[in-house]
């Protein structure tokens, strides 16, 4: 059996540690040290006990047997050590030292144990051991082995190639090998690092830097129920390491993925603390239904991605093509696999990270000031009543006062965003982890905490998270290993209590509505009047209006075991039992607040008025959810005749879940001092409610890999999925995926001609995956109660039931037919890698309603039927370059993805003209009138067909069908939507001596947003609009005249005038770090210390201007994205 060296980067404890402890929270450290002591007390050689019973065998066979039964590996020169000597041994549960003492007693052989490596030398040549062969000349070679950051690597195996001669580096990474033949090659190997071979020639001092294996082609990727070497994988798979994700100072992991992986689009919708998850799309949109990818965390489906601590992540892998078929009915939109970190053998390694950051909106719209706003309201009044003149609402004296600020009481000029928002809000983030272990027991334990404050002054909106993770791996015996993962977190969201529309984000609608001619605060400091319903955002963003908290507790556990079947080599069974639990508790205690009004009195006395609620009220909502996943699979791996490698995996999985919800409400609290249910009035308003839901899945899946000499690669995956969603007898679906690869670089003709390629592989795949993210129980005719609605007879509130749907007894999955072609190349000593993919997906059986062709007189909504078809095709690629020049170490990587989808079939209403049809156009296309300018005067209005009642200053709609009438037939289907077609990222990682720098420049193109504000009497205008608007004096304006909410046809009717391109390029991320030099580290007794500054969304180039181009909705009425500046440190010891 192949032996492995274990990573042992941890340093021995040092007296200097004490200094560091002083700065730490002692209690946490001590607690964790206590655990680590228990786990790391014994080294492998001390803890391992072996039993051997062999009669009359060679010493060599004994050594082989020990290697087979344990992780020990022997290094010796067979020319010097007599291993052919015949011995008989009988040990029962002995330590290795005892065995070796016995074995070599009365010989010249001495042994040295370094972790799992045992070096056998001759007493006669204690200084080293000879590698002489054929009487060649020999030298002594020595040096030091370090990793790329300069940390010395102990335990690295240094072997003369082709022999058993070798040694391991000592605790300082030093080695010394005497008598090495001059033409020999030294092989430096270490688990997790790329093996290096160096021809020594006449050198006597060789220092070696080992690089992490994952950078090169030895990289292993997760593929679902197993892993695979990247070099022999045939699917379209990309991955990123946890390290990189830590560079973004965001509080939600999903937004860290933006721009990092080709084919993965992440669009942030909002940065509201605790509600800031990005929309994830793999290869754009593929269906008219749910486009969200499947998330698998440590093998378990549908766990939350956003709240995972980035420092806990080993890597994130994305399956983009038919390789996802292993996940069958939920894989059609791609799969994101998250693997969390696990312990590695070695001394306890403690890592502490601390970040303190500041955030602010990435962009807030510039709004009109009071004078401009008042002028525009005057214009509106004038347009609807021309005889009244230009000063019907405000006199020129008023406007003058708004402008000069001479009358702050009567004529305020308020910048609402300034009044409501802080310049910078706080966020911070702490992590603590400890990992290490022996070969029998390895552990990774972490604690994390994060906090993010909202943008508002005295914000009632913030997010806190506390999490822990404990990943433990154990080996019960040679054949049975177990893993136990336990992760938990508490998510605490504090949201705003909003009057009226109970959506915490609605404050941004209020802010846009806020009128500059109204005060946020009166000059005497009392809060000003409301916009409506008690909503003065300067007040309703604070906790004056009550508290609205959401507590979520999640516990995720997984116990797994792998059993190697002793009597069949290569056969193993793996089983998983996972139990996830989540509890949620919402509590909203809303109470009255007071706003002040001023009636114009000369004494400037303001009067409080109760707003929002008459009395306090409380609603509570609890839910209890659970998810059970059980799976087991067998894996069989075998090489036939050296060249035929076959690997088979087959298994089964079942998943069940359930959620119970309970809620209660009371109002008319006498006092707001106690916010508990009992204190509310037991009156007619008191209520409670409850509901539940459950699900079940059963699956059978498998994978067959075959390769010939690692040159011709073939993979077949399948899943037979059964889902509770479908009618009995139609619950199971079969989803196959097949892929093949050809490593042309392994062919001799290629090797001869194109040797600068280290690796070149072309690959292709085809598969069918399913999407069952559809409404459940569509096959059942059912009736339900209308929620929160009653019909009232006299004084009796009676429930209302309705027919929930017309059943579709044939409902089934959406099917994704996926084709992928791609290549992976590594060149120039693996410094340059290029990878590209073309894909063509045809999603069929999309559930859509045939209502477009069904008269509504039929009175029912047709059930969705599996008739829709969407094609989505595109390409993506990544080029990465890694090199070192002197002290400069750099990684450059550029990735880009393009995808365009088209509706191949859906239910088009008959008679719709071509230019209005959705068929043949992308998902999300919309009908717009074509804005072709502004009527500058009455002559222009008269000269062109126009909307009834159009007047100068209005937007000209194109008479598309040339019938001299502007009506619904003049609308044209526009192919762009808010989802970008092209996304890309450029990543730079530089390292120079102790400094490191990382940057992510990210961009998107091909999307647009409909940007129009609700303005007029109802609220303020964008300054951009106000400055460029048409007025009777400025008839050649680029923008139309001032409007009052939706009173103009060109506001009420969607038209292209308001579309803005959201193409952008931005410095998404920038980080600059400094690490202490190793000399200082040694002196301090630590392994690594690094401080850094980083930032998010620092700089943007775009033409969108008013709103952030990355945001998913154009109306600006949601919590914006954030810009973050952050400083942090990491300490490892």
């Amino acid at each position: 059996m192949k032996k492995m060296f274990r990573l042992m980067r941890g340093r021995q404890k040092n007296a200097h540690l004490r200094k560091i402890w002083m700065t730490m929270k002692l209690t946490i450290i001590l607690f964790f040290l206590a655990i680590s002591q228990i786990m790391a007390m014994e080294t492998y050689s001390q803890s391992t006990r072996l039993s051997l019973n062999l009669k009359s065998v060679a010493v060599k066979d004994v050594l082989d047997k020990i290697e087979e039964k344990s992780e020990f590996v022997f290094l010796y020169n067979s020319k010097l050590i007599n291993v052919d000597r015949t011995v008989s041994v009988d040990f029962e549960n002995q330590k290795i030292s005892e065995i070796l003492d016995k074995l070599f007693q009365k010989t010249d052989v001495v042994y040295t144990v370094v972790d799992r490596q045992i070096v056998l030398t001759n007493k006669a040549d204690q200084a080293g051991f000879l590698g002489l062969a054929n009487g060649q000349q020999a030298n002594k070679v020595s040096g030091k082995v370090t990793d790329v950051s300069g940390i010395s690597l102990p335990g690295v195996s240094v072997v003369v190639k082709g022999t058993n001669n070798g040694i391991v580096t000592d605790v300082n990474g030093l080695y010394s090998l005497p008598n090495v033949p001059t033409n020999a090659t030294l092989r430096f190997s270490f688990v997790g690092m790329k093996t290096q071979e160096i021809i020594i020639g006449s050198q006597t001092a060789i220092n070696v830097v080992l690089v992490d294996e994952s950078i090169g082609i030895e990289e292993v990727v997760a593929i679902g129920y197993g892993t695979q070497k990247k070099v022999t994988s045939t699917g379209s798979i990309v991955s990123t390491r946890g390290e990189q994700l830590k560079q973004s100072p965001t509080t939600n992991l999903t937004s860290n993925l933006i721009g990092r992986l080709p084919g993965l689009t992440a669009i942030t919708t909002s940065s509201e603390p605790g509600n800031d998850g990005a929309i994830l799309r793999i290869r754009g949109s593929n269906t008219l239904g749910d486009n969200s990818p499947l998330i698998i965390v440590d093998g378990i489906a549908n766990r939350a991605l956003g709240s995972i601590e980035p420092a806990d992540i080993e890597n994130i892998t994305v399956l983009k093509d038919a390789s996802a078929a292993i996940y069958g009915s939920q894989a059609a939109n791609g799969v994101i696999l998250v693997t969390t970190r696990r312990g590695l053998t070695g001394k306890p390694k403690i890592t502490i990270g601390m970040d303190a950051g500041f955030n602010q909106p990435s962009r807030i719209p510039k709004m009109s000031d009071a004078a401009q706003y008042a002028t525009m309201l005057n214009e509106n009044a004038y347009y609807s009543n021309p005889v009244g003149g230009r000063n019907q609402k405000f006199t020129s004296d008023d406007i003058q006062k708004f402008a000069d600020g001479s009358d702050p009481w009567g004529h305020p000029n308020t910048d609402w965003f300034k009044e409501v928002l802080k310049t910078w809000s706080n966020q911070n983030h702490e992590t603590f982890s400890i990992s290490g272990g022996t070969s029998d027991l390895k552990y990774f334990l972490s604690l994390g905490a994060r906090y993010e404050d909202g943008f508002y002054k005295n914000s009632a909106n913030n997010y806190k998270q506390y999490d822990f993770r404990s990943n433990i791996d154990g080996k019960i015996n040679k054949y049975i290993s177990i893993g136990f993962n336990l992760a938990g977190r508490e998510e605490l969201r504090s949201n705003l209590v909003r009057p009226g529309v109970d959506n915490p984000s609605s404050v941004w609608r209020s802010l846009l509505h806020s009128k500059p001619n109204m005060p946020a605060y009166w000059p005497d400091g009392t809060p000003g009047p409301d916009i409506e319903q008690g909503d003065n955002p300067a007040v309703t963003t604070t906790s004056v209006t009550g508290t609205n908290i959401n507590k979520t507790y999640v516990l995720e556990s997984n116990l797994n075991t792998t059993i190697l079947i002793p009597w069949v080599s290569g056969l193993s069974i793996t089983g998983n039992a996972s139990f996830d639990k989540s509890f949620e508790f919402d509590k909203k205690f809303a109470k009255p607040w007071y706003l002040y009004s001023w009636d114009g009195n000369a004494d400037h006395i303001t009067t409080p008025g109760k707003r929002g609620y008459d009395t306090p009220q409380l609603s509570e909502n609890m839910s209890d959810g659970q998810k059970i996943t059980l799976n087991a699979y067998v894996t069989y791996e075998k090489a036939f005749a050296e060249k035929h490698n076959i690997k088979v995996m087959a298994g089964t999985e079942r998943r069940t879940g359930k959620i119970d919800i309970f809620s209660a409400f009371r109002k008319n609290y006498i006092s707001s001092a106690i916010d508990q249910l009992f204190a509310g009035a037991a009156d007619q308003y008191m209520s409670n409610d409850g509901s539940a839901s459950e699900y079940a899945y059963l699956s059978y899946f498998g994978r067959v890999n075959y390769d010939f000499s690692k040159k011709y690669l073939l993979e077949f995956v399948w899943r037979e999925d059964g889902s509770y969603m479908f009618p009995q007898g139609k619950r199971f679906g079969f989803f196959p995926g097949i892929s093949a690869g050809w490593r042309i670089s392994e062919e001799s003709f290629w090797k001869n001609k194109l040797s600068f390629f280290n690796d070149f592989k072309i690959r292709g795949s085809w598969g069918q995956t399913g999407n069952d993210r559809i409404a459940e129980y569509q096959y059942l005719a059912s009736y339900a109660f209308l929620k929160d609605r009653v019909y009232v007879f006299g004084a009796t509130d009676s429930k209302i039931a309705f027919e929930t749907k017309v059943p579709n007894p044939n409902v089934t999955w959406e099917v994704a037919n996926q084709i992928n072609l791609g290549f992976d190349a590594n060149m120039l000593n693996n410094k340059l890698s290029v990878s590209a993919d073309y894909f063509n997906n045809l999603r069929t059986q999309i559930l859509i309603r045939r209502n477009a062709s069904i008269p509504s007189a039929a009175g029912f909504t047709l059930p969705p039927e599996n008739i829709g078809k969407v094609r989505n095709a595109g390409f993506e690629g990544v080029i990465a370059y890694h090199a070192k020049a002197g002290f400069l170490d750099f990684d450059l990587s550029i990735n880009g993805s393009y995808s365009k989808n088209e509706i191949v079939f859906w239910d088009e209403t008959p008679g719709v003209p071509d230019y209005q049809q959705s068929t043949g156009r992308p998902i999300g296309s919309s009908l717009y009138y074509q804005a072709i300018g502004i009527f500058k005067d009455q002559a222009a209005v008269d000269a062109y067909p126009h909307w009834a009642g159009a007047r100068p200053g209005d937007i000209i709609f194109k008479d598309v069908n040339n019938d001299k009438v502007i009506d619904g037939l003049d609308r044209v289907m526009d192919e762009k939507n808010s989802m970008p077609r092209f996304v890309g990222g450029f990543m730079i990682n530089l390292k120079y001596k102790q400094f490191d720098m990382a940057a992510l420049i990210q961009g998107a193109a091909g999307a647009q947003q409909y940007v129009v504000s609700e303005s007029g009497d109802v609220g303020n205008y964008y300054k951009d609009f106000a400055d460029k608007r048409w007025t009777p004096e400025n008839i050649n304006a680029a923008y139309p005249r001032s409007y009052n909410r939706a009173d103009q046809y060109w506001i009420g009717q969607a038209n292209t005038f308001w579309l803005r391109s959201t193409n952008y390029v931005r410095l998404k991320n920038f980080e600059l770090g400094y690490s202490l030099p190793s000399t200082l580290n040694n002196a301090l007794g630590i392994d690594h210390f690094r401080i850094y500054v980083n930032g998010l969304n620092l700089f943007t180039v775009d033409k969108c201007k008013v709103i952030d181009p990355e945001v998913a909705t154009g109306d600006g009425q949601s919590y914006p994205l954030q810009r973050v500046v952050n400083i942090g440190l990491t300490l490892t010891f």
Partner: protein
Amino acid sequence: MKKIFNILMIASIIVISFSCKKSDEFLNTKPLGEYSEIDFWSEPGLVETYVNGMYRNALGFPFALERLSSYVDESHFTHDWGVTDFNKSLFTSDDLLGWSVSWATPQTLNLTWAPLYSNVRSTNIFFSKINSVKADKSTIDKLKGEVYFLRAWTYFNLTNLYGGVPIITKAYTLNDDLLASRNTYEECINFIVGQIDSSLMNLSDTYPTDGHISKGAAMAFKSRVLLYAASDLHNPAKNSSVTSGFSNPELLGYKSGDVTARWTAAKNAAKAVIDLGKYSLYKAVPASGDSVAQNISEFFLSYGTSEDILLHFFTPKVNEDWDGYNPGLFESPNGYHGWSCNTPIGELVDDYEMKDGSKFDWNNPTEKENPYNKRDARFYATILYEGVKWRDRPGDALVMDPYSKIQVGHVFDQAGNIIKSGLDTRQGPIEDWNGGYTGYYLRKYIDPSVNALYVKQDIPFKHIRYAEILLNYAEACIELNQDAEARSYINMIRTRAGQPNLSASLTGDALRKAYRHERRIEFAFEDHRFWDVRRWLIGNTAYSQTSKIDVRYVTSNTSVTSYRQPNGSTWSKPVFSKIDVPGDARAWDKKMYFFPIMRDEMNKNNKLIQNPGY
């Protein structure tokens, strides 16, 4: 071979251990929030909740934010939302403008093709299932009676909007032929009347006043249906201006037949209700000490009287968001932090007679000087106007107006500059953008005892009240030239309202005019006028530039701190004048008599014929 055997063995152990139950059984979950069809139709209690849904969908949302009154010459919708354009007759088969703003207009949105047919389907499902429900015959009969009525009510809305529509009585399934052509108007009316007759056969002789359909309600509804059917809009002798050039006039009205017979039927149907002796006007003859306005106000704030035939109740408990019903908040002036949604227009206010029965006249200097003096009592019960005392203002506003009197005017200095605007104007200090445009606010149905800022009122809406039956009867009599009989019934209404009887000399056209005036005043904001204007073919006169009231106080001060003097008196005598509501120049196109079938629906069903003008 042995290895393969081993693999298979282990695999089967796993599979078997996982599937102790049959796999499909393991996947047998049940929706925990829904009743299966079989469970549902076996429990009469559940069926009743289904019928409740039909009540809601048929009777609609009379207290919605946007009300029918703003689509006719009763009120102006402050927030526009496309209502103004609708009233300019600009709607098309692509866009019903304000009528179908999905997020805000449940009342009008419900009065369109698709939701009405959706309710038709509910009734059809009910009839296809009800016979299998096991319950007492009386329970089944009651439910049937209600659903027949609700189906008739729904079809009546459809015919009022579109003329003849496809009569569908089958609960379609996926495989049915779904293309139905329009039935004639006459067929539709016959069908509706037939449904009402079926309803009457199933309903018992009880007269619940809790909002359930009663026999009386069905009879009263029949009177309305027959009255509408006999009206000019559907009378081939009168409606040629609407049907001319249209190849299918039978879809819009009767093609021939005896109009006298139709009016007679309408008259008899009304008489049948009267003859029940079950209903009477509330305080039909005011007692000597009564304030008539008070009588009428309390009638509209009551939870049921002898006059009520079909009520629609509400509850303060349900939080129906802001698109549901909350008339107190929706209709209150901005000076009460209300939303001023549907504000009475000047034309309606001017139509209220003087107390002595004479017409109000702006050219009469005395009346112009004090326009709200000595008017029809119903004016005071329906309209809030300058200076009238209303419920106490909310805290912050109360400081500015401790008298809680409506303020829709402005205080001017000598130079003609506004130095103080009323709290309930669009220049007021409180939510000015929520201020009404007309200078009037709605009082009818608004409960002053409730602080609408925080509490929803639950006053029921009166779908049918006895006064309508009396006036329906009178209208039929007029059309049958039985003028004296008509006058006596109109006078019952006038007596209750404290107005003098109609002159006995009033006959023919003049009487018809007086009758239509009486109906407008009596039923203002009760969802009658929108239909009356159409069936009487008077769209031309009802849709024109609307007017508002301009109220001015002029003071010699250069600035004032409050709208009224500290002692409560005004700064001067108010000066009233009637001016235009800006932007509300309504215009009538005869196509508006019927709604368009939407282009989409026409495309989906080639058997449909579009109404004229679209």
